[in-house]
């Protein structure tokens, strides 16, 4: 795929990266995805909803396949299926989020069924494994201009929604009883966030695929929350990490011709392990005092 390998000349490397239209699309979509996934990921981790994110992505898989089968955008199919699943989870209540107890068996069955359904749709369409592969593990090749436009619209809308509901959502997450007494509609916020999460999942699947969604939607938020307990900073850090993983992952995939999903997940995993290890070492060395929040007199 690339004519030349990367050099130490960063400008030349970037020109090399973006010389093809498909890579431009991959970077535009990837950037939008990283911004939204990083922001939504902060709330996912704070709310302990990683499992819901995973569930949405798997239910989205047959949606993508249906989109391909019906000759509409696969992203559109993803959005429709993820939205339906989000409203379903919202309807069923909070019990599903934790993913344990009796529901886990039912949820597992639904997830397996949705993957099977996706398999059928892809088979009906082309009978090739390439489409399935890219939606399970992500791709940098297949993002069309129309998908980029759709991604832009989804990202802008979801970002606006997050900016609007973010503050009461944190309140409702951390302290639901008090939030309710203070006039916050905790249940509507919960459903509202699941809808935003459905959008975030739908566009994130394009880059990292159904099975590797954690890399962008959970890992950056988890790493950020390890580093700071300040909501604003953690949110910004989560977005920054998500952007870094995506850009680096796309570049590495382009120059090595290895799957982008592998690089993004590896970067996300490495960052998380490093941060945990550093925190652990600091706790041992400094009697748990280092890496704690610095106590400035004027916070915020």
């Amino acid at each position: 795929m690339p004519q030349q390998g990367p050099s130490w000349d960063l400008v030349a490397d970037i020109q090399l990266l973006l010389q093809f239209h498909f890579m431009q699309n991959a970077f535009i979509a990837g950037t939008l995805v990283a911004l939204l996934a990083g922001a939504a990921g902060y709330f996912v981790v704070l709310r302990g909803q990683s499992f819901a994110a995973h569930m949405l992505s798997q239910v989205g898989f047959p949606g993508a396949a249906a989109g391909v089968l019906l000759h509409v955008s696969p992203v559109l199919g993803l959005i429709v299926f993820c939205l339906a699943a989000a409203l379903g989870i919202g309807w069923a209540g909070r019990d599903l989020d934790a993913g344990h107890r009796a529901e886990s068996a039912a949820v597992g069955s639904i997830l397996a069924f949705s993957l099977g359904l996706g398999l059928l749709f892809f088979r009906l369409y082309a009978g090739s494994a390439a489409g399935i592969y890219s939606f399970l593990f992500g791709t940098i090749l297949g993002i069309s201009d129309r998908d980029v436009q759709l991604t832009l619209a989804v990202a802008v809308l979801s970002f606006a929604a997050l900016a609007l509901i973010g503050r009461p959502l944190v309140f409702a997450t951390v302290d639901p009883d008090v939030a309710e007494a203070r006039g916050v509609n905790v249940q509507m916020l919960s459903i509202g966030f699941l809808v935003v999460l459905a959008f975030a999942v739908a566009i994130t699947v394009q880059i990292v695929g159904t099975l590797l969604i954690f890399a962008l939607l959970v890992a950056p938020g988890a790493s950020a929350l390890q580093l700071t307990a300040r909501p604003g900073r953690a949110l910004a850090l989560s977005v920054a990490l998500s952007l870094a993983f995506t850009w680096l992952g796309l570049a590495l995939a382009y120059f090595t011709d290895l799957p982008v999903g592998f690089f993004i997940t590896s970067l996300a995993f490495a960052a998380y392990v490093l941060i945990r290890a550093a925190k652990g070492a600091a706790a041992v060395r400094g009697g748990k005092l280092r890496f704690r929040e610095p106590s400035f007199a004027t916070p915020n």
Partner: protein
Amino acid sequence: MRDEVGLVDKKPDGRATAAVFDRAAVRLGGKVVWRDVSFEVAGGEFVAILGPNGAGKSTLLKALLGIVPLTAGSVKVFGQPVRRGNDEVGYLPQRRRFDPDLRIRAIDLVRMGLDGGQWGVPLPSKSKQERVEEMVALVGATGYAQRPVGELSGGEQQRILIAQALVSGARMLMLDEPLESLDLNNQQAISNLIRGICQRQGVTVLLVAHDVNPILPFVDRVVYVAGGQVVCGKPADVIRTETLTRLYGAPVEVLTTSDGRLVVVGQHEPVSYHADH
């Protein structure tokens, strides 16, 4: 800090009425929790809400907060019909501890009491920040307010939550079992803190408790909930064998231990409160 007397109807003794229940009733899931409940709380009073498990003590607070609707009668707070989101009312729900892994600073939690329910991105505000710090200092939590709330001890978390409940300018503080799961030292410290807020800030306190003994010395009045009924009065008048037997509709005995603690016992089992329910 704050005017003791608000712009509400005054009682003959000059104190404002903080809360009024008038023939109020609540039904939850088809079952009457309590009915024909009538009592008043004067501004600045320290009121303990007592009674056995499941009698509807928490429901009494939730009715005052506007979370649980009445099926009959009325309830007013500072002369106004109850509503959620009233800045004059602070609330500490019954809870277990915060998740130790919860990564949000204690001071952020206090700030939520001020504007956590509003839409949109919070902008930095010096006046709000100062208000938050003032409340943190009031409850003596300045030393650990920057730490993640999950890392704090039970007593420290309670102080933070009291600051959160007061930060919006609350003149009434409702606490649901705030001393539960605290060790004796912290029970003492937290009840002293609440008493100080009641006396010095003129904040009306309604406190749901299993055990009246840690707060008995400074309770003005007791609201005793049992058998779908409520009796209200001075501790010595309410926590008596005759009153409680009538309320429970079954023989109940109030014993006083040698150190002045009150223990309520039924025929077969302790009906209500010991130090560790």
